[in-house]
């Protein structure tokens, strides 16, 4: 919105105030000024000229020659304006002037005729975009030759106000409200525009009715006759234009001037077209239509408020008038509407119809109904000035809820000391007298029953949603005083360590373990999933019984691809892996950009399974704590402390309570490597690559558990799809057991101390085949909240062993069903019985000798039932001395005996090794 300093200066004495310097103060105290515009700078040399003769141009049909009286001389210039005619009063620009629009006026010839100067349009002078014709100086009685700026008050400074900064201040949508603020800041009186001396009659303007169910709070009407529709004087036209409103005619301009002055939009009907001389304000009937002033036919609903005559709608309340009752050139009788409509209703209608008008933008702010009354009076004054023959021929009809039951004035009871303390000022800085003056200037009524107590009555235009409590007065005083004059005060601080939940350091360590320890790259992704990716790749989450698990569904979404909340983080990470493999990474990883390792820390959203989990103590109902879990007494105490609106809000929230979903913190990892080949949806990965990626993921999970001081993870395949391994327990919001990417034969559930925390899996071959880039990918999804619930392992500063260990390796030929964990466990138990301390590590697993030689992988092709070679390293120590050869022999013998007992190890192998 634009604010004219000239207009402000009509409403408050601004003598000695530089509007550009004052803009800063205004921004800090009232509203943000986005720009300060200097209107008519550079027009000093432009003068008023009368066109005294017009003759044709000898060489051009579209140009004419204008003889212009400049007072001291008459000059002839070439002019291309179609509206040029004798008797016009127009601006003349002498040669040698460069206009704000950039036009340079020179002594020159136009098509062979000398033209020492030019006649100017509004656009030429930079006053508006209007360039169709010359700026005709209607109503300007200055002598020819008078400088234009002296003849017409066009020199002005405009403030461009950020509309967002005044959405909560309906009173600031007109110059009067702005001037009130300026007056308060300058400590000068507000010069109110006149509302006196109007000769209303006793006649009704029309037969007027307002439905109590409509969005209309107040409707005022008056009737004028003898109106002569004509252009407004140039000063009015230029003022409207510079404020962004198109001048139309004196009647319409009067409505707009009053809107810009008071902030209350008005509408003028041509009385001839108000059928039946009746006006009713009501809800629209479903299916009713109205052709608005812009010529568009609008379909209405019962949510809209309309103004109707005896036949049908004539205006869309608060948004736009109807074309059927528009003011035209031959209008002589006018019915004025000055109304106040509910902000929310106008906003709904305007936004549904896509009609944001000057009027709706103001009504949306929920205007003060008292302002409508002021606006009606101001319109009468302005119209009588702009159309001097007009007469008031009615009373000022005034109906509506606001008139039937006028609201009580808002009073605030507070104390001066409280207002001061909230600002951080004392009585010497913020004196009683200063307080009273500032509040009074803003039209608050101030009464002081005793030295400290204050009873402040809020003016109607600030009451309601804007000012209602003492804290609002703190703001009023603070901004007029100037926040930049408030000394800063260090708060008193209690010296105690702040509360930090354990999830915070856990997040930090997990992130460091993934990025620094495992060399993975962190992504932060959307909480929505791409439905088209899910569909292409076939992603779904299933429960143990095979049912598809629900996700949180958006009621409104930005795109049909983004309709649900994620239940798993890994799905998005799989999509990111695909994209990153497609365009390659920075290739600093030694894999030429064919490898990506990604992780994300974030929340998953798992709907609470009602009613099964309804009584779970961890369910979050989104209610204030006492209402969710408190006893009756604490609930009563809590509710008693609330105001009525809040209490109703709490009670309705309790009545309709639904659980928030589980929102566990999760860590997801994806490591993918691009493969060559793949066709017809079949992509095969070399077994060695799959094993390597899987082991990398396991390494990341092990490192995470170690970093978080949790026991080492236990890995096991699900015995049946969706069923946890025996002895493992799970809680609500746990990682889904059967995501579509789970590879039934190449996955592990991760349990820590018997608690299920998540999954590690190579992607299912169907999912692999559906990716846009042939790749092998391993995915991990871990529940950090579940991990947090497991007790930490105490770390001890043990002295390193004093004597050197002795190590040997053994390679066992195994069945493909052999499992490293089981063998390691058995071998360790056997070795530990023979020596004080022993570590058993899997050094190497050679799955298929054939593959290393380049032949097709066929583990059982040679018929060997023990094709897997697994190499273990045994590192033994004695507590009190160096290991002897006998010790090593004993360990070795124990291990071989144990291996011979393992069904998965080739029988007789131990004897071969011993031999």
């Amino acid at each position: 919105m634009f604010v004219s300093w000239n207009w402000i200066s009509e409403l408050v004495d601004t003598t000695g105030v530089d509007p550009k310097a004052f803009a800063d103060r205004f921004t800090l105290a009232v509203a943000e000024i986005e720009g300060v515009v200097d209107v008519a700078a550079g027009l000093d040399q432009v003068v008023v000229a009368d066109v005294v003769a017009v003759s044709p141009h000898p060489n051009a049909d579209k140009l004419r020659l204008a003889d212009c009286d400049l007072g001291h001389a008459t000059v002839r210039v070439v002019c291309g304006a179609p509206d040029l005619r004798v008797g016009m009063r127009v601006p003349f620009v002498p040669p040698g002037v460069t206009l704000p629009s950039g036009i340079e006026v020179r002594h020159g010839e136009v098509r062979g005729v000398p033209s020492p100067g030019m006649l100017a349009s509004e656009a030429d002078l930079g006053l508006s975009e209007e360039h169709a014709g010359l700026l005709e100086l209607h109503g300007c009685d200055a002598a020819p030759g008078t400088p234009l700026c002296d003849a017409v008050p066009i020199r002005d400074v405009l403030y461009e106000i950020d509309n967002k900064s005044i959405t909560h201040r309906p009173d600031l949508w007109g110059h009067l409200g702005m001037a009130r603020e300026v007056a308060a800041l300058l400590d000068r009186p507000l010069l109110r525009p006149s509302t006196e001396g109007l000769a209303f009659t006793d006649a009704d303007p029309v037969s007027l009715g307002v439905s109590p169910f409509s969005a209309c709070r107040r409707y005022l009407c008056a009737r004028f006759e003898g109106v002569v529709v004509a252009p407004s004087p140039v000063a009015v036209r230029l003022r409207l234009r510079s404020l962004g409103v198109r001048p139309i005619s004196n009647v319409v301009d009067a409505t707009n001037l009053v809107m810009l002055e008071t902030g209350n939009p008005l509408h003028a009907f041509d009385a001839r077209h108000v059928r039946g001389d009746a006006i009713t304000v009501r809800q629209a009937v479903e299916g009713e239509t109205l052709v608005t002033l812009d010529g568009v036919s609008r379909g209405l609903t019962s949510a809209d408020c309309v103004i109707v005559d005896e036949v049908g709608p004539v205006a869309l309340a608060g948004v736009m008038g109807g074309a059927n009752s528009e003011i035209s050139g031959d209008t002589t009788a006018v019915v004025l509407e000055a109304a106040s409509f509910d902000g929310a209703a106008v906003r709904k209608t305007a936004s549904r119809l896509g009609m944001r008008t000057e009027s709706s933008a103001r009504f949306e702010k929920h205007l003060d109904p008292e302002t409508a009354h002021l606006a009606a009076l101001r319109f009468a004054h302005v119209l009588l000035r702009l159309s001097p023959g007009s007469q008031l021929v009615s009373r000022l009809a005034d109906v509506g809820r606001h008139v039937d039951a006028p609201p009580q004035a808002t009073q605030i009871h507070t104390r001066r000391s409280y207002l001061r303390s909230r600002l951080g000022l004392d009585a010497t800085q913020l004196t009683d007298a200063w307080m009273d003056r500032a509040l009074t200037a803003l039209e608050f009524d101030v009464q002081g029953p005793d030295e400290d107590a204050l009873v402040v009555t809020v003016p109607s235009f600030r009451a309601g949603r804007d000012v209602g409590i003492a804290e609002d007065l703190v703001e009023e005083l603070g901004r007029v005083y100037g926040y930049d004059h408030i000394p800063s005060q260090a708060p008193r601080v209690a010296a105690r360590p702040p509360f930090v939940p354990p999830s915070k350091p856990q997040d930090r360590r997990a992130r460091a373990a993934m990025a620094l320890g495992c060399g993975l790259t962190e992504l932060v992704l959307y909480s929505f999933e791409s439905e088209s990716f899910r569909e292409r790749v076939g992603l779904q989450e299933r429960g143990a019984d095979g049912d598809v698990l629900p996700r949180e569904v958006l009621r409104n979404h930005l795109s049909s691809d983004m309709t649900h909340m994620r239940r798993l983080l890994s799905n998005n990470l799989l999509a990111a892996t695909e994209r990153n493999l497609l365009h390659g990474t920075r290739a600093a990883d030694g894999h030429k950009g064919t490898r990506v390792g990604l992780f994300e820390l974030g929340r998953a959203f798992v709907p609470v399974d009602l009613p099964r989990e309804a009584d779970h103590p961890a369910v979050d109902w989104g209610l204030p704590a006492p209402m969710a879990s408190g006893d009756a007494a604490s609930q009563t105490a809590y509710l008693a402390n609330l105001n009525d609106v809040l209490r109703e809000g709490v009670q309705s929230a309790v009545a309709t309570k639904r659980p928030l979903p589980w929102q566990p913190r999760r860590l997801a990892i994806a490591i993918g490597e691009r493969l060559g080949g793949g066709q017809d949806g079949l992509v095969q990965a070399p077994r060695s690559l799959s094993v390597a990626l899987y082991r990398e993921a396991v390494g990341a999970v092990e490192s995470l558990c170690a970093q978080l001081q949790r026991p080492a993870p236990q890995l096991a395949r699900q015995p049946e799809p969706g069923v946890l391994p025996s002895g493992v327990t799970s809680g609500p919001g746990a990682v889904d057991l059967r995501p579509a990417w789970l590879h039934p034969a190449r996955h592990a559930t991760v349990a820590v101390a018997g608690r299920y925390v998540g999954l590690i899996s190579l992607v299912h071959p169907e999912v692999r085949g559906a990716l846009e880039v042939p790749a092998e990918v391993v995915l991990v999804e871990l529940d950090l909240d579940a991990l947090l619930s497991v007790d930490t392992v105490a770390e001890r500063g043990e002295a390193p062993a004093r004597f050197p260990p002795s190590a040997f390796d053994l390679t066992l030929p195994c069945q493909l069903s052999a499992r490293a964990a089981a063998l390691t466990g058995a071998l360790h138990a056997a070795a530990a019985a023979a020596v004080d301390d022993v570590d058993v590590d899997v050094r190497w697993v050679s799955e298929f000798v054939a593959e290393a030689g380049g032949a097709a992988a066929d583990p059982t092709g040679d018929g060997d039932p023990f094709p897997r070679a697994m190499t273990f390293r045994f590192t033994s120590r004695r507590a009190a001395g160096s290991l002897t050869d006998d010790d090593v022999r004993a360990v070795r013998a124990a291990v071989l005996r144990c291996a011979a007992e393992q069904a998965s190890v080739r029988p007789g192998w131990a004897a071969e090794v011993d031999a």
Partner: protein
Amino acid sequence: MSTETPAWQADIDATAAASLAAIAAAQDLATLREVEVAALGRKGSVTALTKRTGQLDKSERRAYGAASGGLRKQVQQAIAARRDAIRQATVDAELADLSFDETLPGTEPAGGHVHPLSRVQLELEEVFTSMGFAVLDYPEIESEFDNFEALNIPGWHPARDMQDTFWLESGHLLRTHTSAGQVRAMHQLEPPFRAIFPGKVYRYESTDASHEHTFHQLEGLMIDRHVSVGHLLDSMRTLLSAIFRRDVQVRLRPGYFPFVEPGFELDISCQVCGGPGCSVCKHTGWVELLPCGLVHPNVLRAGGLDPDEWQGWAFGLGLSRLVMMRYGVSDIRLLLGGDARFVEGFHAGA
């Protein structure tokens, strides 16, 4: 002593000459070692001469012994001298060789990368904890009550309109601001307290280079017996100076947010030009940074606190915006776009 030259003298001399020549010719320690073995080893030429003593007359043995022993000593000394010389020459040559390219690029260690949002969030969490702030974490799917009602945002308020908020079929919503945690914090912590709660927030709005439907904020909340605008000013200047790691000036402008009263837009002195004005600050010397204010009494009530007893201030810092300011990110969509190359531009330092 006979002056006649014994017959074996020629062999001694020849072996000496050959060995010394070979020693002198050796250019490196490995060759010298070979020469040493060829002369002094078990089958070496000098050793062979020594072994001949037994074949000579007793009269000659003493002289021959002295001569061959002398030869052995002479060769040993020559080898030692030559070894020192070679060692010295090699060290000298390495020291004198300036062909080494000290400007070769480093090879990158296989470290990963932390997302800049995480990095800035962690840094702020550290700054705030060091100043006594609790660090809290609240749900992203929130109840209408916590996100709106409790924050004094009544039903008629435009912020409640469908067009700004993602609603779920369950009736809950995606929190539109971290302020949704204010009332949770008041119930969770005993006053007086200071707390921040960073996290993801959501707005139902279409995206472009400066708008995202998902972004990150950091809420700050302080509750105490007496909290004034003066306290807010002091706290914000101190905190922002710590965040920007330099002295930051702040100013307050009126701003309307239903959950604070008075409410402010806080501007900081332009970090680019430092005051005189530049294109970043639109030549004002000030840059709008965050909304803040004194906690509205209705919000305190919703948080179970008596406004006659407790007061507070709150602010909402745009983490995404801070990341963009700090790292010169021109398009907000890069932050959550999932392109690893963007994150790989940042190092791991968590």
